């Protein structure tokens, strides 16, 4: 086994105990999502769909939180389109504060990169977000809605100014009596730049260890 893989496994094994010792809660989860992308370049519109797999994690210390998400996959053009398939890599790193028990405020960058044949297209958007949570059945079922707007952003090389906004929401349900939760989520984001516009929708299923917050 390669040394870096050993280090990764050791970190994964030790992180829960270390986090608990510091009074820090955490959640980790795996995500599978069906993504639908509408891409407008000048006057040409293409639609793509594909499966994105990823992971996410949240660290929660009292009122402060850190959230990271990573996903990658391949999206294929809908039939009748002459566009090339795209390799997709996306992620975000957000810092948050719990303003009230049901409202969290977040800020941080989100990135999305496409590889289309020999060319790349990279979107980097700095966002401000608000997440509201509601309890349906205490300790068993909860719901959430998140809204975000771009503070700044760019796309391409050389970079051109980009903006956008998005939302996501869904349902989280405890699986059995253990510490695992399932999430059914919907995410939409619309980013734009001069002569470019991308609208990405995702229907996601996640399995999360720890209470999502």
């Amino acid at each position, binding site marked *: 086994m390669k040394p870096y893989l050993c280090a990764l496994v050791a970190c994964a094994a030790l992180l829960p105990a270390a986090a608990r010792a510091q009074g820090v809660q955490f959640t980790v989860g795996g995500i599978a999502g*069906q993504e*639908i992308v*509408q891409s407008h370049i000048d006057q040409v519109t293409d639609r793509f769909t594909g499966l994105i797999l990823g992971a996410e994690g949240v660290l929660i210390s009292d009122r402060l939180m850190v959230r990271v998400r990573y996903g990658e996959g391949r999206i294929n053009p809908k039939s009748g389109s002459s566009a090339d398939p795209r390799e997709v890599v996306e992620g975000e790193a957000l810092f948050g504060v719990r303003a009230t028990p049901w409202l969290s405020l977040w800020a941080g960058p989100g990135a999305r990169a496409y590889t289309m044949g020999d060319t790349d297209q990279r979107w980097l958007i700095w966002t401000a977000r608000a997440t*509201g*949570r*509601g*309890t*349906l*059945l205490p300790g068993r*079922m*909860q*719901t*959430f*809605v998140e*809204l975000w707007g771009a503070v700044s952003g760019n796309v391409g090389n050389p970079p051109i100014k980009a903006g956008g*906004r*998005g*939302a996501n*929401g*869904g*349902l989280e*349900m405890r699986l059995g009596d253990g510490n695992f939760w399932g999430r*059914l*989520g*919907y995410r*939409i*984001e*619309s980013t734009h730049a001069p002569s470019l516009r991308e*609208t990405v*929708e*995702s*229907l996601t299923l996640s399995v999360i260890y720890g209470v999502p917050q």
Partner: protein
Amino acid sequence: MPPAPPDSLFRPERGNTNGAVRALVPGVVAGAAIVVLPKLVATGERASKARLIVGGAVTIAGVAAFFSHHPGQRIPANAQYNRNIRESWQRNVAEISRRNADRARQSRMIIRPGAPSLVTSETP
């Protein structure tokens, strides 16, 4: 006698309407938001049906959570649980009363005469 069981031991025999509404509201609001928000976020785009699946699931979950609180309805399981507590207490009271009555019936007062003593006004 054993004291009557405190109220805190009893479960509600009727569903809590306020709790049910508190469960319903987040489900319906979040479900509606998920259905409507794509129109605001991506104006002019044709949003997929995925939002209807998730928004519908969230709304249904909220409605299910509402009914799981049995708003205003009798909860037979809780009524039976409370009845068991009351009956158990009443049985204890009856048993202790019976034992006390038995004890009172079986008790005898025995008076044994002691050595005679002379009591006078000079006696300290």
